[in-house]
């Protein structure tokens, strides 16, 4: 690095409440948040998986747990997280292949992520949880 670089005083907007993310940025941070949420809830999900595949008693316990409205709500949220992460991941794979890099295409594909993941959450949530 040379010393001749002019250090400009750039404005920094780090107030999270004031940052207005563009749609691709919003979808992208949700990719991270959904991934983190899924990771944090892994013990719970693995517990559900293990008890559903265990003895008839543990399956009954699983059934009772999943019947709880609060648990249903959490699972519904995690289903959204999985589907958003899934759709966004496919979008990232296309970006890796240099498909859809320009701004209009990037915006359109972000819209598509929400347009697919949100209805799919409702449909699959309705089928699997209620």
């Amino acid at each position, binding site marked *: *690095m040379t010393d001749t670089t002019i250090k400009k005083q750039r404005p920094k907007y780090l107030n999270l409440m004031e940052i207005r993310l563009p749609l691709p940025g919003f979808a992208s941070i949700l990719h*991270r948040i959904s*991934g*983190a949420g*899924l*990771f944090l809830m*892994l*013990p719970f999900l*693995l517990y559900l*998986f*293990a008890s*559903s*595949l*265990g003895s*008839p008693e543990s*399956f009954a316990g699983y059934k009772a747990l999943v019947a709880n409205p609060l648990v249903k709500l959490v699972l519904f949220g995690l289903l959204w997280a999985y589907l958003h992460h*899934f759709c966004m*991941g*496919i979008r990232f*794979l296309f970006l*890796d292949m240099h498909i859809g890099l320009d701004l209009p295409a990037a915006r359109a594909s972000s819209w598509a992520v929400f347009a697919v993941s949100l209805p799919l959450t409702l449909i699959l949530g309705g089928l699997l949880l209620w």
Partner: protein
Amino acid sequence: MVNRIVVGAHYGMRDWLAQRVTAVVMALYTIMLAAALLAMPAITHESWRALFAQGWMRFATFVFFVCLFYHAWVGVRDIFMDYIKPTGVRLSLHVIVILLLVGYTGWVAQTLWRL
């Protein structure tokens, strides 16, 4: 603009690739599982257990979970690298995550192979 100091053997290429490969494996498994569940007339305890007791399904499910845990490791590590600045705290968290994921792998293996 990030000024990268170019030292070391690799620059995250392996993890970058692993993140994508594991993602594709998980996506294929997810679609396969969804299709298998939709094809089942009714999901009971017996049919649910029978699904995962099949040899290929047990294998595929275990591969899915190993991919999931590797994928989670790279993702969580990236999050820690972005937000956790003190090196000691970050490395401690890395160790905790690795131990958790190794434990989860054993848990899943036990769940699947005692069917």
